[in-house]
């Protein structure tokens, strides 16, 4: 087989449990984002735009939707005869089989996959973040510096540094210490969970890690510290553009509405760095005579007869006459019926908000702000007529007519 310089391995097995009802039936990387994307479109598009054409996607939790979405990899130009995108679920071999025990174990179990391409480098990615990054520059630095491992880092505000894995490094960028969520951080360089390894080194450490029965088989907890202890050459790669974790309801809501903030540097319309996605065949969006649309992002297949303000409508959403959608995300196929109100909320795929129902509240209308938050309605659910869903509530079952939650 033709030699491949770099193989990307995308860890997409995570449940994303903090997204609650939104990841009940789908893996976190399959969560819709930005009107027509899913989170996984970002690493996949980054790969293809960076010239990486061999990508393994490691799936474990609720993979059906993700498998379906990735398909042959055509939307990302990753349907290749040599390389391309491959879904890698846990499998059984003659010694039995195992679930992926941790991030490192997931890669360990797929050493045969990587070996087929005989790469120099392996790029480890996750499907948890929204960002545009040219991985080829990072790999180039890895080559130039002759590093064993290069870790992408981003400067975070010092006061938030204790929420991240922090890399402490010398002025030349070599890492001397890694601290996971330190109480008193020494630096504000947070690991982005993006690693470039020289393949022979990674293979060695994966095999050693697997042999250690006490290991939790995790990159952050085991592989990186072990390599540091052995004085391997580990260097940071500094990244300064937009990067956002979408692990919680609040951060998912924020990262979406960031697209409407002209001050935020996340341009999805750049023809030189397109974010590709699998798009449904839907007609153009229709904005009616009675509609009022302001400061919003709307995509194909939507029919808008009501008011939409500072919100994102995903494909095939219907907002009926008199309905109001403000500061909200309405995911594909959802219907907001007449005179219903959706404020500071995330409405899941194909959910229906019946007439005069209300979901979510504005922070200024809540007496105790500590109880305020974004309301969420799960996929395929129905919120009945005149029902009232308060702020910060997560709806997991149908809401009956007139109910208050």
């Amino acid at each position, binding site marked *: 087989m033709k030699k491949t310089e770099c193989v990307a391995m995308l860890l997409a097995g995570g449940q994303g449990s903090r997204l609650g009802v939104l990841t009940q039936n789908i893996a976190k990387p399959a969560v819709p984002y*930005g*009107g*027509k994307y899913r989170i996984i479109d970002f690493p996949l598009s980054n790969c293809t735009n960076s010239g990486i054409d061999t990508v393994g996607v490691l799936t474990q939790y609720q993979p059906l939707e993700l498998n379906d979405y990735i398909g042959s990899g*055509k*939307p990302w130009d990753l349907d290749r005869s040599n390389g391309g995108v491959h879904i890698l679920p846990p499998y059984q071999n003659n010694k039995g089989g195992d679930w992926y025990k941790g991030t490192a174990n997931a890669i360990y179990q797929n050493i045969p996959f990587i070996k087929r391409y005989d790469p120099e480098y392996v790029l480890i990615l996750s499907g948890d973040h929204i960002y545009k990054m040219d991985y080829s520059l990072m790999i180039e630095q890895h080559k130039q510096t002759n590093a064993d491992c290069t870790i992408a880092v981003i400067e975070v505000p010092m006061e938030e540094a204790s929420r991240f894995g922090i890399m402490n490094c010398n002025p030349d960028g070599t890492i001397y210490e890694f601290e996971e969520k330190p109480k008193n951080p020494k630096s504000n360089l947070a690991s982005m969970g993006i690693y470039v390894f020289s393949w022979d080194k990674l293979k060695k450490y994966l095999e050693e890690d697997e042999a250690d029965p006490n290991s939790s088989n995790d990159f952050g907890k085991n592989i990186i510290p072990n390599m540091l202890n052995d004085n391997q050459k580990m260097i940071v790669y500094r990244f300064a553009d937009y990067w956002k974790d979408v692990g919680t309801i609040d951060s998912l809501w924020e990262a979406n509405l960031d697209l*409407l903030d002209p001050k935020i540097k996340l341009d*999805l*319309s750049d023809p030189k760095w*397109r*974010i*590709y*996605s699998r*798009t*449904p*065949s*839907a*007609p*153009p*969006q*229709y*904005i*009616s*005579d009675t*509609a009022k*649309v*302001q*400061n*919003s*992002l*709307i*995509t*194909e297949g939507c029919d808008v007869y009501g008011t*939409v303000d500072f919100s*994102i*409508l995903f494909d095939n959403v219907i907002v009926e006459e008199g309905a109001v959608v403000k500061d909200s995300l309405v995911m594909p196929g959802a219907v907001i019926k007449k005179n219903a109100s959706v404020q500071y909320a995330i409405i899941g795929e194909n959910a229906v908000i019946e007439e005069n129902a209300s979901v979510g509240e504005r922070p200024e209308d809540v007496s105790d702000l500590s109880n305020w938050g974004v309301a969420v309605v799960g996929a395929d659910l129905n919120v009945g007529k005149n029902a009232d869903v308060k702020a910060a509530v997560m709806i997991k079952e149908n809401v009956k007519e007139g109910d208050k939650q």
Partner: protein
Amino acid sequence: MRKNNVLGIVFPNAHDELMGEMTERRSMGSLPFCGRYRIIDFSLSNLVNAGVSKVGIVTKTNYQSLMDHIGSAKAWDLDRKSGGLFFLPPYSNTEAKVYKGHVDGLFGAMNFLKHSSEKFVVMCDCDVITNFDLNDMLKRHIKSGADITIAYKRGLMPLNRHDVMAFELNGDKVTDIKFAASDSKERCISLDITIMSKDLLTEIIKEGYERNLTSIARDVYQKSLTKLDIRGYEITEYAAIMDSPETYAKVTKEVVCDPAVRRDLFCKTRPVFTKTRDDMPTIYGLDSEVKNCLIADGCVIDGTVKNSVLFRGVKVEKGAVIENSIVMQDAVIEAGADIQFVTLDKKVTVGANKTLRGTETYPIYVRKNAEV
């Protein structure tokens, strides 16, 4: 499930001459329509939604934009090992020239027909905008035992065409074919979507070529009514025949203003497939005002847009006003510009504070890449 026994043949160049400047550098089939489509998308989607998996496109001239659009035909799921999409350009064999009518056009495609094993052929031009159940038509064709079935709609004859067949029907049997002038009388107007067996088509083409016939309607159908059993199939869904730039504007307006037309054309069970462009969703700015519009992805709207269609990637700057217009992809309407009853082709720029006004009956057309 067995793959169906039908071959599709599409004529994207038929009636190019009717659209004036709009088809100067493109075929009728590749004429942009309704925000994100080319007219041929409707023909191809009708075929594909009926399970047809082998389609020949008989091209004539100006087919570069069409080939660009079709690419590997992935969007229509016609990138197949078995079957799929075939371009049949002129000069495909030594005897075939740039054709004048469907008969000699098909003669150039004889090899394609010969090497296909399908029993039936569906032929269509690209001047008809409709989304209908072709499978139902096929079932009716087989059940009736007819030699030829041609789809029609009830309505007024198109203004600018003199070659459109109007059927006289007895039940569904065509008893007479007239090329009637446009008047106020409702007729059964042929939509030139035709089903017959491959063998019959081959025979017609051979004989037609030997006799130097060009028009399949005038020279074959009309003259063989006594010999052949020709049936009509009524399309009750929305169907429009493109016969002029004015009709193009009128049909677009019908799609924008009539929810029933949109329901027919964008029927959920029979999606219209097209090449995707991976634009981001459309951004409606703080000062935007949009009423009664069809809008594709990738637009940035900071101005006012009413009763109009915006194709992909259109920029409407602050204070710009667009009314009753069709703006094709990647056009830029700069700040303070004001356009009404205008059709802007692709990548047109309308400069700041410029005004362009056509009228409902005479919309202004601005050619591709122009700067106003």
